[in-house]
């Protein structure tokens, strides 16, 4: 799963940043990579617009799935 791989990488980066042996230049490069991953994850989690569909039909006649025309009301 890309989510968990990305999160693991950010955790790794944090560990490396906490390591005294990592020099400043490398740290900044790592931090930039980490921030990019976090932005990507946030985008996937928050910005993605979900699709709400409704299934109709029956097992015998086949089922079709269409975009639901529902007032979702309270958001």
């Amino acid at each position, binding site marked *: 799963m890309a989510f968990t791989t990305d*999160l693991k990488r950010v955790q790794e980066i944090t560990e490396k940043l906490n390591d005294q042996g990592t020099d400043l230049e490398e740290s900044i490069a790592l931090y930039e990579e980490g921030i990019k991953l976090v932005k990507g994850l*946030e985008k996937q*989690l928050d910005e993605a617009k979900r699709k709400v569909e409704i*299934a109709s039909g029956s*097992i015998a006649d086949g089922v079709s799935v269409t975009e639901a025309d*529902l007032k979702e009301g309270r958001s």
Partner: protein
Amino acid sequence: MQNDLFPQDITVGELTQLIKTTLEGSFYGLKVTGEISNFRPASTGHWFFALKDKDAVIGAVMFKNALWRVGFIPKDGDKVTVTGSIDVYPPRGTYQIKCDSMVITGNGEILALLEERKRQFDALGYFAAEHKTSLPLYPKKVGIVTSPTGAALQDILQILGRRAPSLDVVILPAIVQGEGAASTIAERIAEANLFGLCDVLIVARGGGSIEDLLPFSEPCVVKAVYDSEIPVVSGVGHEIDWALCDYAADLRAPTPSAAAELVSKGYVELREAMNGTKEAMDQAIAAKIGNAEDALGFVNPTKLSQTMTRSISSWEYQLANAADGLDHASKFFFSERGRHLDQIKGKLAIASPASRLKAETSMTERAGILLSAAMRTNLDALGNALLLARSQLSALNPLSILKRGYSVTTDGKGNIITRAADLATGENIGIRFQDGERKAIVEE
């Protein structure tokens, strides 16, 4: 025919009073079961209705002061058992049951049926823990088997939208109570599996009476839930309600909202973990930068800048000299070339001196660029060397070693002794500590 009880004419009022006394004196402490019909709560707070069965109907009243004992509002068709007594209302010449308490009946039978069914399914292994599969942590599409118009669906959509906005939803509309409900619910679950419509299923409906929830305990629904390859979360009724599909489901949620929360749990936890990690990362980089700033503080900026200025002016001087030298060289070159050109004037018309001139100029420029690049490299090296020297100096400082508890031993002449073999027994030695020296004699 003469009746000895009523030897003379009596009035309607007297007769009704006699009936009232007779009936009310004989019919009390009653427990009557029947179906509610024509239920009409009055504006005064009392309930008026009728109780009926297939053979007869009787009026009933429940006064306001007795209502607190009834945990529900009955509706027409409910089968109830009431306790009370017969009451005669003379102005209308009617009699009715005056109710003291009321309970829904039939529940006992339904509950017994459900318990028996539950036992059977349990024995068949339908509720076995090893049959249950865990929900996907990050589902892509969740199927919802429920009424398309119910509040349960709205609750689920709202919670999913808030907690996992990227999660797609497919609604599988079903009838959730009454005739045909169980079969549509079962069919929707089967459809979701057959057509691979989603990777997790919520089977839900809002709260209701035990009869309303019955479809979710029907064998065909229990079987469909059990047979579902797609993990099923059941969220039927309120916390206190239950249905047999709860036991067959991979996960039981107390309410439809809770089902939506369970399905989106992975995303919420991921977001929390991500926020936590980001915070830790921010702190780590801030600490790193802080350390670097502290390290820079050791370098005296004024001194460094003076050194740099000196270096730069020295290089500038050399650059100027070099440029001047180049200038002279090229001037000489061109004058020589000029003379030569004069000599071969006309013969070498195509060998244009202009192009030569251009080439030489760019050579001069290139030399300048190379020189300033070399100068920059040198300055960088200088800065690095300075930092290195500083750190080496602090590492080599003997005082810092003495402070850690080491000491330096010298012989009578002040030479540092590094080996035990270098000292003879009885020899005078000096031992240097961080705060001063002491004299000693070698014992052995």
